[in-house]
Structure formats: C-alpha cells, structure tokens
C-alpha cells in the first residue's frame, strides 16, 4: 500500500513517462505481474534451454525407458520428471521445447502484426473500392475455422514447423487488419489529423507518423493474445502431425508421440500439456493486464 502511495506521489511531482504510467497501471493487476514473471522464466528457458537442461534432449537412455518421475516408485534423480518411451529425459525435452513455442509466438506475431497493420493502414486510408476489396478478402479468410485453414495450408506447404508458423500467421492476420482499420477510421475524424493535413503532411506521413501511434494500444493487446493463440495452434498442429516433426521436442509433437502410452505412463502426457497450459495462461494473464493498463476506457472499471 505504502508503495502505491509513494508511487502516486511521485507521479504528481514528475510528469511520468509513458512507460512509467503503463507500469503503474500494469502493476495493479496482480495476475498480470505473476504472468509476467512466468513469461520471463519461459523466455529465459527459451534462450538458454540447451545449457540448462540436465541432459541432451535427443539422447536416448535405452536402459531407462518410460521411467516414472522421481517421487514415484522406480524414479531416480537423474531423470526428475521421468523418461519417455525412447528413454529420453522428459525435463530436458520440456526445457529445450520452450524455445520452439517462444519462437513460434515471436515469428507468428511479427508476421501477422506487421502485415496486418500495413494492410489495415492502407485499407483505412484507401478509396472506398480498395477498402471494400481488402475487407472482403479478410471476410473470406475469417469464414474458415482458423485451425482447419491452417491445417490445409500446412498440407499444401508440407508439414514442418516453419510452414505451420506461416499458416498460423496468415490465419491470424485478418484480426490485425480489422483492428487497425477500425482505429484508423475513428482517428481520421479527429482534429489533430485534419490539422496535420492542413499543414501539408502527405498521406504516408499521416498514416505512419500521425495516426499509427494512436492506434497502437489495441494492437499491442491483440499481439499478446495472439501470441498465446499461436502457441496453442502450433501445438495443435504438432499434435495432429502437421507441425514440428519428431524428434523435435516441441510440446505438441511430444504429446502426439506419447498418445499411445497415456494409460501406462501418465507423465509422458501430463507434463508437455502442463507446459503449454502454464505458458498460455501466463501470456493471457499478461494480456489482460496490458489491456487494463493501455485502454483508458477500461482503466478504472
């Protein structure tokens, strides 16, 4: 409480920077802060996983296949979370697997967001006919259930993690287009845009320098939420055999490999899914916090 008060007092004195103000609101949401911490651990594992993991993720301990976790009968400390049907260390595979999910999230969101923002900006400033064409195309993409569309796209491109990422990015892109276009349309009405135009700003300058920064808040929230969607969809594709291919320790692929052993060895199924759930949950918690902190309309509700 004291902390919050002094922070508030500070804010009265010094005109807070944008980041500072953001952090002030973000911090109020305890779930979001927890999410941020979990995400930080996840990012750390993604960067340094192979050096932290106790074993090589692909090394097969033939003497110890399907060994249970340490707290169960037959478990040993050398394989804390047990081993999979090929004798590979579960913990190491999970740790190394973090980087695939992280990578998927980063790449998919970058492609989908940058593409979507550019198309959305164009659509918002374009003459009506071009705008209509662009929005119809987005409607068409949105008419297909996202996972099905991604599945067919991967079937066309060939099953691999890269192609799964491309497919998911294409499927997620229309959301950014719609979001950007909607905020551009409402911002364009405002006086500051008109004055910028009167002063002589060209269309490109209006788009990128004047309007875009004021449309970013909802896009950032969407980016956080689609980060988790991307991880889920990539895992689902991996689970269906259309994402990362074995022996890659991608979490969804690990689940697919472990499926036939579910009734004999619960740990090979439980841990990869738990890793996906915790990661996605942390990102969604963060997304909720971001929305509260960035959206002035919701700030005090």
């Amino acid at each position, binding site marked *: 409480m004291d902390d919050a008060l002094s922070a508030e007092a500070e804010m009265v004195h010094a005109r807070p920077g944008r980041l500072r103000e953001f952090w002030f609101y973000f911090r109020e949401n305890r779930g979001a802060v927890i999410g941020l911490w979990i995400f930080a651990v996840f990012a750390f594992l993604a960067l340094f996983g192979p050096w932290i993991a106790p074993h090589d993720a692909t090394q097969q301990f033939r003497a110890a296949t399907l060994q249970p976790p340490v707290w169960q009968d037959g478990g040993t400390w050398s394989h804390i979370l047990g081993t999979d049907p090929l004798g590979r260390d579960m913990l190491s595979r999970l740790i190394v697997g973090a980087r695939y999910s992280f990578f998927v999230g980063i790449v998919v969101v970058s492609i989908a967001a940058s593409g979507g923002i550019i198309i959305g900006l164009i659509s918002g400033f374009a003459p009506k006919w071009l705008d209509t064409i662009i929005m119809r195309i987005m409607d*068409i993409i949105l008419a*297909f259930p996202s996972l*099905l569309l991604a599945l067919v796209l991967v*079937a066309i491109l060939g099953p691999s993690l890269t192609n799964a990422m491309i497919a998911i990015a294409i499927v997620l892109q229309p959301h950014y287009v719609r979001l950007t276009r909607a905020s551009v349309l409402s911002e364009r009405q405002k006086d500051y845009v008109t004055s910028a135009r009167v002063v002589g700003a060209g269309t490109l300058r209006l788009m990128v320098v004047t309007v875009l920064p004021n449309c970013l808040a909802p896009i950032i929230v969407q980016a956080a939420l689609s980060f988790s969607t991307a991880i889920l969809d990539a895992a689902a594709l991996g689970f269906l055999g259309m994402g990362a291919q074995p022996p890659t320790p991608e979490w969804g692929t690990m*689940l697919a490999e472990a499926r036939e052993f579910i*009734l004999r060895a619960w740990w090979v199924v439980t841990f990869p*899914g738990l890793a996906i*759930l915790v990661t996605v949950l942390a990102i*969604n918690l963060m997304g909720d916090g971001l929305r509260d902190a960035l959206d002035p309309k919701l700030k005090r*509700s």
Partner: protein
Amino acid sequence: MLKYVLSRLATFIPTFIGVTLISFAFIRMLPGDPIVVMAGERGISEERYLELQQQFGFDRPIYVQFWDYFTGVLQGDLGNSFVTKRPVWDEFFSLFPATLELSVCAMIFAVALGLPAGVIAAVNRGKFFDRALMSTALVGYSMPIFWWALLLIIVFSGNLGWTPVSGRIDLLYYFPNATGFMLIDSIASGQDGAFTSALRHLLLPTIVLGTIPLAVIARQTRSAMLEVLGEDYIRTARAKGMSSGRINGIHALRNALIPVITVIGLSVGTLLAGAILTETIFSWPGIGKWMVDSIFRRDYPVVQGGLLLIAVMVMVVNLTVDMLYGIINPKIRKR
C-alpha cells in the same frame, strides 16, 4: 430493415464466391498430381492417365475448370471422393449429424454452466467467488483442448473406468440410423442400455469441446452483467425495493444476454475448429475427423468440398446472428 438485410446479403455473395475460389485454388496448389495420387502405388499407364485427365477436366484451362466447379457447387455437385467414390455432398451430410449432436451438447454444457457462473461472478464482484470463477475461466480459456482430452481419458477412462475412449456407442448395439443423432436413435430403438451407452460415449467429448466456449461465455456474461448493473434503471429497480434476485435475474440478465447471444452465435467457427481435435482424439465419426483423415489421405475433392461447406456454414450462421442482432437492437441497422 429490408435495406439492412439486403446490404448484409450483398456482402455475403462476393464472400461466397471468394470462399469457393479459395477452396478451389488450394487443391490446385497441393503438391503431387491428384491422378497419380489416386492411382496409388500401382502406377498408371499413359493412356489411362490422359483418359482420366480428360474425365476430370484437368486438361482444360484453369478458369474453365473453376467455372465448371462453381456451377456444380450451385447445383449441389461437389464431386466424388477419390477413396470411397461417393459424392462429397452425401458423405458430408451423413457425417454431419454426429458433429451437430456433439456441438449442440457442448454448447448446452457451456451455456448451462457459463451463464450462471458469469452471473454469480458479476453479482459477487471482487469477492472470493468472483476471483475463483474467473481464474477457473481463464484456465479454461487457455486450455490446449487436445491435452485436456487426454487428461480426462486418463482419469475417467483409465483410472475410474467410467467412460469409453472412442466411438459413439458400444458395438453390442445395432439399430438403423433414423435421424443420425445417436441419443434419439438409441431411445427409438428401444434396446436396453443403448441410450446410457450413447450418453457415456458423448460425455467426455462434450466436456472437451465445451470447455473453451464455457470459459468465453462465463467471461462475457460477467462483463455484460457488470455493465448493465451500473445502469440507471437497475438503481431505480433497487430504489423501488425490488428483491435483488429479481433485479439480477430479470432486469439485468435479460439485457446482458444480447452480447452473450452474439458470442454464442459467433463461436460456431471455434466449435468446428475444436471439433477437428476432439473428434480426432475420440474417434468420433463426424466432419472434423473426416476432414483430417481426408487431408492425410490426399482425398482432394473431399478436402475442397468439406472446406467450402464448413466455410459456408460458418458464414450462414454469422449472417443469421447479424440479422437477429439487427432485429433485437435497431441501432445496429443504421451504419
């Protein structure tokens, strides 16, 4: 109103043509020659190849092929499956009831639990119940449902032995598929235990498919309720001395329902995407499993036709939701 309906329909038609074009184009882009794939490992002679190419029309210009396909679609002809040789249209509609039954049950499950959860959370805003329910909803919302399915199988089928792992009914029972809905058919058959068996097969897939809609509905109901509870007419009702049960149940919930119904309508696409995973895991003989199997078997006409039919279905549902929304809320009509 008529103008609104017409303008919505006007956007429907180009989207429909586009969806047809995309599902047509996808199949042309798939690697591998469909005829060679169809011939399988036996190979195919040069003459037979040319003959088949002519039969399917693959030797003609691409726009002629599309025109043929498009006019065929309008007449309900989606081609025949390479594998079963049956018309795609027939296959789709013989499998569709299984998916529909599962989706309807999942939606009932989601609404029956999600609405009360959202209302309770909103009424107890900030208190323990609210926090517990909303945390649970967020977990449900983040759930990888294919893993959730496996966990449920471990617990309920493996450890407890309560539910079967796959299919729609025990092989013991056999009766004609009158409606295609197993729950109805099993009652109609009059066989002892058939209905219970169908119900037990349905239980886990329903929970799995309903989990994400449940979480979405609970969250949406809560925020819609909170918004409505802040309105003046609620304060008026309270001032008149109306009981809080009546206020929450009748005044608030009724008005909060509009956005919730929209969410329910719009989650049809989510349900179908979820059905792909759920049906694959539980070997549920519906559209989702059929699509996945066809993609793996490279059964191009099925993938093409199924993609188109599913997209059109999503579009029709969205259009209906839009129209209903226009009827309920006149403000939306003017745009």
